[in-house]
């Protein structure tokens, strides 16, 4: 496919690998966090860690949308499906996340709940229109990439006067999560997770632009390079980060200039602002309760807010015993450091959310690089 295959070209990859090895200084370590789950997936899938110099380390961040959704929120969705008997529509990955009592939405379906996988919010709208006698709830999750599609669906539902459609909104904000990583005592404490820079997300940045990262570059002196989601994009972004570190710069640079502008997608941002407002605080898996880190539906669109319509409460629930998802999402542990990894917890039988989605750090490690990718895939 055009503009995809070129960004996976092996010959260019070898060139970039050489350039990267030449650029790193042997007398120091480089630690970069890839914020986005899409990058975690690409890094594992294309064996990028195996191409990196020994002293360059990638740390997985909290940007896997399914992973950061806390159990209590899935419990609410289960309540909607099992007790309120609504038709619950959501993206595929969410359905497999175990909640309280290890029950997932998929298992709820086996127990007779009407849970449906949708590819897009458009599918959920279609279901609501076709089945007017059903209460249809879309379980919305994700960062700034999935928020505009949810906003578009709510506005369309309003335009159509759909009375049986509502949204259980769990949309969260990337800058808030980055700030929490940088403010985390574990990260601040010297020697735990010293970060030298961030690989900025691809899809998220197409919407929010490069501007929101400037704060991190200035305030925390951390370079940010926004990267596309193909392997060469990631390699190039790492090279640009190394150069910034070597030169003592901390700037926002944009490797994904073919799709990311400074201000992002104004139309999508305006739509989000019309439909959503900030929540005062929101509970994240792994990161805890973060102020102004998530969105809720505005008063004007309240008729479409499942939380109000079904008077949903929120009850925090601790993660499964032994599961290290929280520490993994903060970048302080690696998947292989979890005792359950690959034995008790596998993609077929996940214990925590990080083993569910292909963007989850545990699932990505399990699928593509069990053992040490570095030793197995050394490329000269």
């Amino acid at each position, binding site marked *: *496919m*055009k*503009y*995809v295959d*070129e*960004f996976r070209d092996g*010959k*260019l990859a*070898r*060139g*970039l690998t*050489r*350039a990267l090895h030449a650029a790193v200084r042997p007398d120091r370590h480089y630690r970069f966090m890839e914020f986005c789950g899409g990058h975690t997936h690409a890094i594992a899938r294309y064996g990028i860690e195996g191409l990196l110099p020994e002293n360059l380390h990638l740390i997985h961040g909290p940007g896997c949308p399914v992973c950061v959704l806390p159990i209590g929120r899935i419990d609410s969705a289960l309540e909607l499906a099992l007790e309120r008997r609504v038709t619950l529509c959501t*993206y595929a990955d969410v359905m497999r996340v175990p909640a309280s009592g290890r029950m997932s939405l998929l298992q709820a379906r086996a127990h007779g709940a009407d849970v449906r996988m949708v*590819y*897009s*919010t*458009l*599918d959920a709208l279609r279901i609501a229109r076709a089945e007017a006698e059903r209460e249809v709830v879309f379980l919305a999750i994700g960062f700034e*990439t*999935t928020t*505009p*599609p949810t906003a*578009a669906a709510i506005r*369309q539902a309003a335009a159509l006067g759909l009375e049986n459609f509502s949204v259980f909104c769990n949309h969260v904000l990337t800058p808030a999560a980055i700030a929490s990583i940088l403010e985390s005592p574990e990260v601040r404490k010297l020697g735990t997770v010293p970060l030298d820079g961030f690989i900025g997300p691809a*899809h998220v940045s*197409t*919407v929010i632009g490069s501007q929101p990262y400037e704060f991190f570059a200035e305030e925390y002196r951390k370079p940010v390079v926004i990267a*596309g989601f193909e392997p*060469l*994009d990631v390699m*190039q972004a790492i*090279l640009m980060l190394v150069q910034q570190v070597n030169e003592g710069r901390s700037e926002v640079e944009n*490797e*994904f*200039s*073919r*799709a*990311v502008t400074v201000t992002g*997608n104004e*139309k*999508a941002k305006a*739509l989000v602002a019309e439909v959503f407002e900030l929540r005062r605080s929101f509970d994240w898996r792994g990161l805890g309760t973060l102020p102004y880190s998530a969105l809720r539906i505005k008063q004007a669109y309240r008729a479409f807010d499942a939380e109000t319509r079904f008077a949903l409460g929120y009850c925090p629930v601790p993660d499964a015993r032994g599961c290290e998802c929280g520490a993994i999402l903060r970048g302080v542990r690696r998947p292989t450091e979890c005792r359950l990894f690959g034995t008790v917890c596998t993609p077929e039988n996940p214990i925590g959310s990080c083993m569910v989605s292909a963007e989850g750090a545990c699932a990505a490690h399990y699928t593509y690089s069990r053992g040490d990718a570095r030793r197995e895939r050394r490329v000269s």
Partner: protein
Amino acid sequence: MQVVELGPGEMAIVDAGGVRKEISLALVEDVAVGDYVILHVGYALQKLDEDEARRTLELFAQFGGLGAPAAP
């Protein structure tokens, strides 16, 4: 993914490696047939800038030491 057909109601058909897919253009502006878009959960999130794509590929080649000319 390339837009191959514009439909009614802000919908469009894209070609995804030989497969035709219906997507929404509700979140983007001024997309025409032939344009490439970044797609996510059934919606185009952004139009792809082909000049920038070429520039990035040139950059890869330059950093990779393959001697392709780079823009100043």
